[in-house]
């Protein structure tokens, strides 16, 4: 069981290392997500009718989780993001198995991603 855990964490750490860091000028309170014990910054850009997310965290495991999330949600239309079903979080065992405070952080991240979807949808109606 422990090995399974370590494998999962090592994978998250790898993902984190591959995630391009957010530009330092965006590491501000404006992009900071509430509800994470570690600090998480999330930014959404609208390009070619799609949303492109960039994210970062000072804790590497958290950053790995965001990397996973960003992979799934990137380059989708605002409509898709606003309605996305993030069942994969359950499926890969992140929500039950990460500690409660951690999954709160995860929840805030997901909420913020959806909020960006809703906001861009309201703005561009797509």
């Amino acid at each position, binding site marked *: 069981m422990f090995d399974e855990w370590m494998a999962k964490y090592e994978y998250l750490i790898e993902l984190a290392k591959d995630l391009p860091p957010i530009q330092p000028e965006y590491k501000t309170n404006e992009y900071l997500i509430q509800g994470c014990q570690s600090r998480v910054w999330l930014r959404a850009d609208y390009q070619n009718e799609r949303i492109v997310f960039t994210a970062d965290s000072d804790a590497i495991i*958290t950053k790995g989780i965001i990397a996973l999330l960003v992979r799934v949600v990137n380059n989708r239309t605002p409509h898709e993001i606003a309605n996305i079903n993030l069942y994969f979080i359950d499926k890969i065992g992140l929500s039950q198995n990460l500690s409660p405070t951690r999954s709160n952080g995860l929840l805030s991240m997901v909420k913020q991603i959806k909020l960006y979807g809703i906001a861009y949808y309201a703005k561009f109606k797509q």
Partner: protein
Amino acid sequence: MMNAVSMQTALDIKSIRAMFPALSLSVYNKPLVYLDNSATTHKPALVIDGISDFYRTRNSNIHRGVHYLSEAATLAYEEARNKVKDFIGAQHSHEIIFTRGTTESINLVAFSYGEKFVHEGDEIIISALEHHSNIVPWQMLCERKNAKLKVLYFDQNTELHPEKLDELITPRTKLVSITWVSNLLGTVVPVKEMIEVAHAKGVPVMIDAAQAIQHFSIDVSWLDADFLAFSAHKAYGPTGIGVLYGKTEWLNQMPPYQGGGDMIETVSFEKTTYNQLPFKFEAGTGNFVDAYGMGLAIDFIRSIGIENIAAHEHQLMEYAIETLSRVENFMMVGNPANRAGAISFNLGSIHHYDVGMLLDKMGIAVRTGTHCAQPALEVLDIQGTVRASFAVYNTTQEIDALADALRFINNIF
């Protein structure tokens, strides 16, 4: 209190551990290594069973009934008060007010002492080491009264100095409220000297003893503290109960904190007169079952001997500092000469939260983050720490396990 240090520990930790049911837990199929004792300690069976037994055999509201059970419950509550009084060396049992814990005790003083003695332009002094519970109530008071909150800063070793307090005190200073032991760093503050300095200028002092009561012997009469607060749950007792000790002269002058049953003498719609101490400050049905449980926790501590606990924990602390310092990347936060209960650290540039999560998976419980002491971390200019904190039942093997786990984490990153 510190002469206990040179004593050889004669404690049989194995048999002490056997008194704590939770210590035989496994987490993720690993034996639990519990190093989060500053947050709350585990409880001996004596306390757990005693509380359960109380509900079975003595439960009834206190100070109210004419009947047998009510009398028995009232007696138990007042016996618990007496045990606390003796435990902390107070003169009178009416100087022991039962509260929900340290936080409520501090809020009580901030409100009631503040109502009576603090006015516009006055000053309250706290230190930069304080837990949020010893910051926010004073900020609220200062906002209410248009008073000023002043801060006593620590030096590069995270120590506080009485001379600096002396410099801060002015004729407008109405109270100093200061922690005995920092929950973040384990720094032991020379509170006796602080009190002497403040009293020399006629200023009363409140001591936050939340991280002191479980680690060494306390005598409020020797200390000459005006107020002192602690929680039972950090000292082997139940949650939801704690103590405010206050000198009679202050408590008598202060208005009640909350209104309700038990705290009154007579009530009419025109005027209510208040009950005597300590009941004036205990509105509503007190948490008599947990007060009884706190009394049992004191029995537990006494059966081991607080000096023996202090000596054992001192050895653990020395062993921990020595062992952990040999771990690559181990960076202790703060360097006080006198440390009790807790060590805060970081592991190189690895985020404290990553360290905490991985330790958890290895069965080691620590706390990570800001430890309700954000201003202190701001002064230190760090985001957070990992904190390992000890109780009488911890062993050097557990510290070895922590050191091994930290080496393992070093290798992952």
